[in-house]
């Protein structure tokens, strides 16, 4: 059963199910950007990018890029009707001021108290933080997408982060390759897990106790 896990696309799909119609959403660079591809039919979230744009759409056809129209990952995007441009202080004002409904980020580690480590592994190389330390504060929901364990098999949901922190007590929900876990009052609360996985098996690859509140639903996703 330990081979059973969701692909990144499937994790992104699951996260997309929780994004309401009309929600204002910031998707972190890389993996979290995939969430936009799985927007639920009939819903129109508005995507925010830190560099001063609300309401962007998917990448343009190769060769038609306009490099003044990019996202925070410096990738070319397109405009949807009702978009708006603004400067960087206004953009992070939206973030810090609590105007985003959801911010979705990647993670190196998430602690049971909601601490997030996602910007550097150690002290080597050139450090770069970008907007991560701002994005983890202010959004109504701060969600994380991640494999449940590292490539070596170490838990990424931990008792306490050992990597440098991005933010303290900021994560509200984690979508992993095995489960959906909320952070409630300093604890991991399991909401959904793969049907084929036992509680014991899941706990064995999780670095802190998984609590439950009522039923744990099956984590069901389509083939992608």
């Amino acid at each position, binding site marked *: 059963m330990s081979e059973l896990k969701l692909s990144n696309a499937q994790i992104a799909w699951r996260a997309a199910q929780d994004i309401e*119609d*009309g929600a*204002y959403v910031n998707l972190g660079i890389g993996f979290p950007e995939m969430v936009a591809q799985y927007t639920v039919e009939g819903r*129109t979230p*508005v995507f*925010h990018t830190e560099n001063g*744009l*609300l*309401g962007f759409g998917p990448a343009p056809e190769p060769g038609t890029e306009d490099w003044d129209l990019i996202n925070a990952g410096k990738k070319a995007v397109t*405009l*949807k*009707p*009702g*978009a*708006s*441009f*603004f400067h960087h*202080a*206004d953009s*992070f*004002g*939206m*973030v*810090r*001021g*609590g*105007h*985003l409904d959801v911010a979705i980020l990647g993670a190196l580690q998430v602690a049971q108290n909601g601490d997030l480590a996602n910007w550097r592994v150690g002290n080597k190389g050139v450090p770069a933080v970008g907007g991560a330390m701002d994005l983890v*504060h*202010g959004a109504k929901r701060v969600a994380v997408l991640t494999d449940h364990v590292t490539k070596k098999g170490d838990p990424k949901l931990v008792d306490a982060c050992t990597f440098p922190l991005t933010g303290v007590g900021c994560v509200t929900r984690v979508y992993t390759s095995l489960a959906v876990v909320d952070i409630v009052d300093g604890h991991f609360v399991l909401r959904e897990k793969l049907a084929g996985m036992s509680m014991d098996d899941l706990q064995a690859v999780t670095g802190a106790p998984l609590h439950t509140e009522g039923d744990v639903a099956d984590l069901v996703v389509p083939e992608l």
Partner: protein
Amino acid sequence: MDKRLPGLEEAVSGIKDGATVMIGGFGGSGNPIELIHALIDAGPKDLTVINNNAGNGKIGIAAMIDAGMVKKMICSFPKSSDPRAFTDRYMAGEIELELVPQGTLAERIRAGGTGIPAFYTPASYGTELAEGKPTAEFDGKHYVQERWLKADFALIKAELADHFGNLTYRMAARNFSPLMAAAATTTIVQATKVVEPGGIDPEQVHTPGIFVDHVVEVADPQQEEALIRAGVEYERA
């Protein structure tokens, strides 16, 4: 997503007793007269109202005060060409006043909308308006610490709005409105014209729709200054 509401009555129906309400405008420019009058008709009490001024004549905020709806005003300049409504209540001890320097008022509202709980300004240092506030010295100069200002509701007058709540303002009617739209939990807009998404150039949006909750079209809005000069009086419908 469509933030349009059919009428003013629906737009203000969520504003209950005890709410804090920011109202855009500077003097008559940008004053959302129709929204204010709809709020008077709805009649919530014990409101805290934040506006640069404190009403003029017998309409708008002055009419709210006359209707006994306002417990407290937070403003910089509670005087006007006809300040009777506020002055009478204030001198009778029936309305509270928090007087804030105008730039500090603007920056406190901006801080509320942008998640800055406190900041330092030189304004009011050493004056009676700084009494009781923390101070600090930076690079040899003295500053007063000011706190953010937020509200439950903002009533805003815009020129154009689209269905997503993107706004533009007309000339100097902009003033406090972009700041208040961001600092309120629920922002209610009256716009002279409402257009489809895409009807406003994305480079020319003054207030992005993320700050706006409800939009009502008021096609031919009244201007406070013109009403004052015409001696108009508003009474609850």
